[in-house]
């Protein structure tokens, strides 16, 4: 069992070492990515069959040693990561100019290893180290975007490390109260009170900052606008999700907090609406897509207040049912957003190259010049907006159902308005892209065939997995606290 937990962490690290000193970067990178997909599928199968995977390196059992634990959520995000990374590296091989140079290979692999370590860690301190690994790798990737990317990269680094410190104080507090760093062992041992409230508040602030929860999101659009094309999908689809997974696990293990839930409801709703409005108002394509990430993080954060009754055994049945539906829906949305946003960023980066400029207005005529890329953008955008039959629709519908069941009408309103805003942003881009080419005779750069397929595959997956997503729901519930 420990092999499936540790190989996805150690193999990319070995790949990072190899790509840092050896010339065969593509071969090593693609081999590692393919192996990661194999591990991820095997882990999903094993988790569905046997429940959460456990292990402890060195043979030291927790609490003394480090507990490794892969639940259904972790396995699902691991699969998402493997698919996205393979697609991104495929794109990088087909269009090397989109990748940010040779250093992008080791930095990508390090970031992947950090995310995997976050997913398999059942130990709070290991989680802190893993989050830092992911952050440093991601900052290095952003900085590859050249001069304009440096300041956002620095801002990201400072804010993310500050978030880590907050998380670390929370970890120290858990250890002081429970005598353990293993989340599962600490879960039952922390009674409600100021200590629990402080732990959750610190962890929520720290992880929220790392996951770009508004209002601390200012660096993100700048970073995305300047980052290489293949970096944006990694950042938005994966790195942000790593912190969210930790936040969800911590909340569900420790039982949540009603007062904090209200704050998160306000922040999450604000992020959905504010991010949606700002996305609509952007002139530049990559900034538009980046602001939509701010909005999407809002949805995922709404998970915590909406799912609160599911963590409370004393809550009435109706509220628990609704909360569980919202929990499942939001996590489906997390996966949908990962696939769709990665496709969207790859397509946007390609479109900027085709259009010769990064303004939305420059896109006129791209639908005739690069129809597949525009199609990819449209399909992925539809998934983000929650149109049927996409995974985004399945997730949002379930979340809505949950909100209605538990009578959270404010959330229903936020979800509907947010979806409308996302749909309008996508429609605006498509509307420009479908306009006739202003200068059909001009010499244009084409898109290499290999660069079209990875993004389209992701977009198709984002729609296709919405049909028959019952297995995903089953997977997400394995080892989850709300499932009991």
């Amino acid at each position, binding site marked *: 069992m420990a092999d499936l937990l540790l190989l996805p962490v150690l193999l990319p690290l070995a790949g990072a070492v190899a790509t840092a000193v050896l010339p065969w970067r593509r071969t090593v990178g693609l081999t590692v990515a393919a192996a990661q997909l194999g591990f991820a599928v095997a882990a999903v199968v094993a988790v569905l069959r046997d429940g959460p995977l456990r292990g402890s390196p060195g043979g030291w059992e927790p609490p003394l040693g480090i507990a490794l634990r892969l639940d259904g959520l972790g396995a699902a995000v691991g699969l998402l990561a493997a698919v996205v990374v393979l697609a991104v590296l495929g794109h990088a091989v087909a269009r090397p100019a989109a990748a940010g140079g040779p250093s992008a290979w080791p930095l990508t692999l390090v970031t992947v290893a950090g995310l995997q370590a976050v997913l398999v860690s059942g130990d709070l*301190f290991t989680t802190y*180290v893993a989050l*830092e690994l992911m952050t*440093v790798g991601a*900052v*290095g990737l952003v*900085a590859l975007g050249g*001069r304009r990317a*440096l*300041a956002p*990269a*620095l801002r990201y*680094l*400072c804010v993310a*490390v*500050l978030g880590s*410190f*907050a998380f*670390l*104080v929370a970890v*120290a*507090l858990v*250890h*002081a109260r429970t005598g353990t760093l293993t989340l599962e062992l600490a879960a039952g041992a922390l009674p409600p009170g100021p200590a629990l409230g402080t732990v959750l508040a610190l962890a929520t602030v720290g992880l929220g900052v790392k996951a770009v929860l508004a209002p601390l999101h200012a660096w993100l659009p700048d970073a995305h606008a300047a980052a290489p094309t293949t970096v944006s999908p990694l950042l938005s689809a994966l790195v942000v999700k790593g912190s969210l997974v930790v936040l969800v696990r911590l909340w569900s293990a420790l039982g949540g907090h009603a007062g904090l839930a209200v704050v998160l409801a306000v922040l999450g709703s604000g992020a959905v609406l504010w991010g949606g409005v700002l996305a609509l108002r952007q002139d530049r394509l990559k900034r538009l897509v980046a602001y939509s990430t701010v909005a999407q993080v809002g949805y995922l954060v709404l998970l915590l207040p909406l799912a609160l009754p599911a963590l409370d055994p004393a809550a009435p049945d109706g509220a628990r049912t609704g909360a569980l539906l919202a929990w499942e829906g939001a996590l489906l949305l997390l996966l949908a957003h990962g696939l769709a946003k990665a496709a969207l960023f790859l397509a946007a980066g390609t479109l900027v190259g085709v259009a010769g400029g990064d303004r939305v207005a420059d896109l006129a005529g791209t639908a005739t010049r690069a129809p597949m890329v525009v199609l990819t953008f449209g399909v992925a955008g539809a998934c983000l907006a929650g149109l049927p039959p996409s995974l985004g629709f399945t997730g949002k519908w379930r979340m809505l159902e949950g909100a209605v069941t538990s009578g959270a009408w404010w959330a229903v309103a936020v979800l509907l308005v947010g979806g409308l805003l996302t749909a309008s942003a996508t429609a605006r881009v498509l509307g420009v892209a479908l306009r006739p080419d202003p200068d059909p005779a001009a010499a244009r750069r084409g898109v290499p065939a290999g660069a079209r397929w990875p993004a389209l595959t992701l977009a198709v997956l984002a729609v296709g997995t919405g049909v028959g997503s019952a297995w995903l729901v089953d997977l997400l519930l394995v080892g989850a606290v709300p499932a009991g």
Partner: protein
Amino acid sequence: MSAPDTFLVLGAVVTLLGAARLLTTRDHLRQIIALNVAGAGTLLVLVALGSEGTGTADPVLQALALTGIVITVAVTGLALVLVRRVDAAAADADADGDGDGHG
């Protein structure tokens, strides 16, 4: 208050002071200094929380603090490289190049 309690409160105050300064200053180098002050406060909390008074501190927490120190210095090193690059880019953008450094 016992020694760990004193340093525990101190750690919490220093952490938040550093965080506040990091978020309010616009000078990149000062941000990094503030980040390190906050980091020192965090480690103080970590070790003091597990300390039994005088004598020897918890070896596990000492090990965690060591790990935290190394990570913080790695992050600081990367951040300072970025600071230099950002400052240089800003100086190039200003194009007047009248900076003479402090050296």
